[in-house]
């Protein structure tokens, strides 16, 4: 576990580890709000004053892991980690991990409700996207904790809100939608692992063009021509995209007029 006083440095350290040719089994990042929430809940021994921590798990054959551990420590020092701790024993290792695995419920204890996002980005865009998220958080007044599968660029911003306050759920969803659009703009995706379902149906229109969405519908029709399996999920209708206005506009051609209305 490595602590950092600067998110950029933590992000760069991730790239440095991979640049050495080491692929860690797990590589997770948490920001200060997530660290404090997890520490409060699990007492994992996280440094609550750190701006960010990196959890790096190396697995494999005993000898290789020892070599890689030494190498990773060097890299983290060079990257400007303020503290580096190797789990002393299996118990401490399990505690470090428990803090991360329970980050969602931990954040849940800090706030009546939270909304978990799942965008992915190229890792190099992390500082830009985090700055964007911080700005959205400031504008909306809703706190955002960041938990990040740092190795593969999958972010889980957790938006804290209180559904009992009128309008806050809508505000949280609005912030969430904007975060996903930030991810798309950074060359990423609206979902890394949680899927589109119903939740991100409108953001699909930001990630794909109407031509691409038409192809998705064609694929669906090859297996389920009458559309009886899970209707309304995963792929938006073009009418929905037109309504939500986020559809890509190509060569200044608005794709809307010919769309079917139901």
């Amino acid at each position, binding site marked *: 576990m490595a602590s950092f006083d600067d998110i950029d440095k933590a992000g760069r350290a991730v790239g440095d580890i991979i640049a050495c040719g080491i692929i860690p089994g797990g590589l997770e990042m948490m920001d200060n709000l997530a660290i404090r929430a997890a520490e409060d809940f699990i007492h994992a021994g996280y440094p609550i004053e750190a701006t960010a921590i990196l959890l790096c798990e190396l697995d494999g054959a005993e000898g290789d892991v020892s070599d890689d551990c030494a190498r990773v420590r060097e890299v983290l020092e060079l990257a400007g980690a303020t503290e580096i701790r190797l789990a002393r024993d299996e118990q401490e290792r399990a505690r470090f991990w428990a803090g991360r695995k329970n980050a969602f419920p931990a954040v849940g204890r800090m706030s009546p409700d939270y909304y978990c996002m799942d965008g992915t980005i190229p890792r190099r865009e992390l500082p830009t996207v985090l700055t964007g998220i911080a700005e959205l958080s400031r504008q909306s007044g809703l706190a955002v904790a960041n938990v990040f599968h740092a190795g593969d660029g999958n972010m889980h911003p957790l938006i804290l809100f209180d559904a009992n306050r009128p309008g806050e759920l809508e505000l949280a969803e609005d912030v969430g939608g904007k975060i996903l659009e930030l991810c798309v703009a950074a060359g*990423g995706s609206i979902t*890394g*692992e949680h899927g589109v379902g119903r939740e991100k149906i409108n953001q699909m229109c930001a990630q794909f063009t109407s031509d691409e969405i038409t192809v998705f519908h064609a694929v669906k029709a090859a*297996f389920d021509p009458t559309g009886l399996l899970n209707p309304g999920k995963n792929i938006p209708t073009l009418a929905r995209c037109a309504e939500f206005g986020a559809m890509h506009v190509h060569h200044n051609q608005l794709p809307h007029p010919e769309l079917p209305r139901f």
Partner: protein
Amino acid sequence: MSEPSPVSQRQVPAHAEYAHGNQSGHDASEALGEQVRAAHAAQRPLRITGSGSKAFLGRTVEADEVLDMRAHHGITHYDPVELMVSVRAGTPLAELEAVLAEQHQHLSCEPPHFGANATVGGTLACGLSGPRRPWSGSLRDLVLGTRIISAEGKALRFGGEVMKNVAGYDLSRLMTGAQGTLGAISEVSLKVMPRPAASQSLRLELSLDETLTRLTAWGRTPLPISAASWQAGTLSLRLEGGMRSVEAGVTMLGGESLHAIEAARYWSDLREHQLPFFTTHASHEALWRLSLPLVLNHGDWQAAVSETLGHIDEADLLCDWAGAQRWLYSDAPAERVRQLAHRLGGHAVCYTPGVVSEQDSPLMPLNTINARYHVQLKQQLDPLGILNSGRLYAGL
């Protein structure tokens, strides 16, 4: 294709974005799109080609007009630290591999080239993987995203340049191995991996039966095996990973250690069908690829062989992928070889042109329901049959 030396120091690649950017290569996507749009408007079928190195791998496409992807070439984006490269379809595979090697990275599935000029697009369309496949995953597993030209000539993008992306259906992986029947691949983003720090190949004299028994037992341990082939009483093994685990593996397994250069040549020749097994075989026999379950009881194999083919000469068999990919020379009718593969829970592909009839396909026929959904998918994505129609199966 040089192998890493057994005791190589890891080197740190340049952290900055790799210099290969948009400046190199040539973007022909607009012209290619225009060609497809024109063909679509005229309902004229097209035959997609890269370098033609794997032309034998499918049926003949009935089309006079060629969509030549080679003009669309160059690496558009390579970021070693993101473990990602985006490359245009017409780029020679060898060129891509050389660029990756400079950064001590590679395509971990080591796809076969089958020809010096094989293109990345043709490689992807064929979806083949080399000796590391059972341990590293397939070519499809490396695909992060593709840009394609649809049958209507539209430029579409699926997936992307990030490691995880589950938005929409996974059409980029579907394109892999589809041989251009669902779209012409114009660009692909692939996950690249660091080359292993250490690599050592070994040779052991063992019967096939004994080889398979041992590989099964080794498979349940963390031994860093990354290739295992057997031919004529010799098991060739490659161990790759951290220096210490490779050294420990070598000590444990014994056998004869191969020099790095000799080892690199062997695995490359195996992958490229340049071993004497492939180059010296009598021409009247067809080469079949049998893709079989990961662990196959040798007795079951022998029983199935004797029931379908009668006898096979050991010299006609080469096993790769720890036995899951077997190359067989046989003059038996296609039907028999397919029965053999089917009985064992796998499938067979004929690699020699002209062996199966025109109506048939070198690929194993699909069952009725599967075939129906294959055709429905083709009809949805390419109703006029513009792109490589009939390449996989009649009507597909």
